[in-house]
């Protein structure tokens, strides 16, 4: 089984979100970038298939040279090789187009990805990629098992879960449950040393048409201060929730 894991390079959750150039760009100043946490669940599941079922694991990211440390981290966790498509990601369709091209050309039969990236939260890429390729697609995936080419997959539904069956090739949009948080791996020194020698291939993008573009960003309005209510006066809290917030 040849597994491709899509890695999005996103700001760490603790980052301050600011915009620059007249609010048209995300300000990366002082921002620490990490592997998208939902992609990390996918990568960890891929490592299980590598160790238990002998699969090969390739990680891929769409981005400029600044995304390479994130790919190296994925290699340190245990992926065999990495691919970077050398273009600035601007839109879900653009990214899906680039990924689909690589998946098709290199014959990957299982593509694992987080269901969304935690920067733009678009939730577009895995599904679009699957539809471009004509592969099966399952979103919000919380468990994945494969025997031969037969896949058993659970997905989250509102208020529960659904178990599905299908064949490879398959693309999933994954989330927590695919593996548990405690199973996520922190690269060790040996992994980091080995990652330096693993292949990181750079591919030029295929041409694409951009249909959606960002005009500007805006920060949410500053929130008012928290109103503190005395614990001996909870009637006041009820009145505020009823009359002011109008939520009860």
């Amino acid at each position, binding site marked *: 089984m040849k597994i491709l894991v899509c890695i999005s390079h996103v700001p760490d959750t603790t980052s301050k979100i600011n915009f620059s150039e007249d609010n048209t760009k995300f300000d990366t100043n002082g921002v620490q970038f990490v592997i998208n946490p*939902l992609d990390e669940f996918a990568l960890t599941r891929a490592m299980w298939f590598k160790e238990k079922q002998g699969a090969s694991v390739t990680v891929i990211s769409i981005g400029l040279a600044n995304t390479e440390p994130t790919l190296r981290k994925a290699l340190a966790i245990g992926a065999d090789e990495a691919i970077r498509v050398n273009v600035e990601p601007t839109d879900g369709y653009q990214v899906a187009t680039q990924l689909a091209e690589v998946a098709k050309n290199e014959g990957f039969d299982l593509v694992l990805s987080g269901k969304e990236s935690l920067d733009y*939260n678009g939730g*577009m890429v895995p599904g679009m990629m699957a539809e471009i390729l004509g592969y099966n697609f399952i979103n919000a995936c919380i468990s994945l098992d494969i025997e031969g080419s037969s896949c058993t997959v659970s997905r989250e539904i*509102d208020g529960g879960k659904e178990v599905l069956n299908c064949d490879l090739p398959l693309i999933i949009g994954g989330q927590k449950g695919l593996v548990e948080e405690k199973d996520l791996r922190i690269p060790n020194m040996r992994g980091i040393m080995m990652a330096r020698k693993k292949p990181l291939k750079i591919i030029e993008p295929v041409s694409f048409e951009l249909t*959606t573009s960002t005009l500007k960003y805006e920060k949410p309005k500053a929130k008012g201060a928290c109103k503190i209510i005395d*614990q001996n006066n909870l009637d006041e*809290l009820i009145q505020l929730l009823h009359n002011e917030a109008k939520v009860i």
Partner: protein
Amino acid sequence: MSVLVFADNSEGIFKKTALEIVSYGKRVAEQAGSTVVVLTINADDTSALSDYGADKILAIKDSRLDKFNAKAYADCIQQASIQENADIVVVDSTNNGLYLAPILAINLKAGYASNVVDLPDALEPFTIKRNAFSSKGFNYSQMDSEKKLLSLARNSFGLKEQKVVSDVQEFTPELDNADFQIKSVAIEQTSGKVTIADADIVVSGGRGLKGPENWGMIEELAEVLGAATACSKPVSDLGWRPHGEHVGQTGKPVSSNLYIAIGISGAIQHLAGVNSSKTKVVINNDSEAPFFKAADYGVVGDAFEVVPEFIKKLKEFKSTL
């Protein structure tokens, strides 16, 4: 041209998310000087849709579609959009909506904007406001494609009642085997409980509650308010509560009208998942807990004293309504 809305139903009932996008679709149609067409699949009673402005309803009846199937449903929506000459298509942000939307976008050759939080800023060029960065920012996107697919963020527009007489028509899409490659083998659903996704109010407990045996008051508070129960990540990691209740960045997102956090300090990963809730209340004995910076109302005090008292007062209040 028209605006097409896909209103998903759950055992014949249109949930708030479905009615909200009908409301939204109606307003977009008015803005564009056109009408809204609502597509339904295997719903017997579509009258609720007429209360929120559905000018026309296309009703599909097909037993192959009894269970949700993203590819087949996307195919139905695409065929309806062609018949109705729809250049704007709206879906919801439930797990089903978010599953079928990217498939549909490719089929329609449409630009796709998810996390939409408001009516279009402009129609020419088409500009739309979206949530990004876990609600720490907004993105205004311009869509130049001829067709546009929008998924509306939950609880971002609200229900706008607008009774109309709907023109209800049957619609029969052509489906083939390729639509049914993925087979549903089992569905496990907790019945009778308010789900976090659908709830207007969510009551959430953290490690400050000291142990799973103390959740009785959380459940009682939720019951009084008609709320769903949730928990922080450490609580689900410790196995005090099921994983399905974990809200936060890697758990479930919450965009309820009211979120009540009890004994939760407010780690940034937790806040990222609950940011888009409209009103937040925190009850915590540590006045320095970061959640007080994110909340609208706060009570500094011991949860074991405050919560039972709050329940008592709420019951009194409810009895006066």
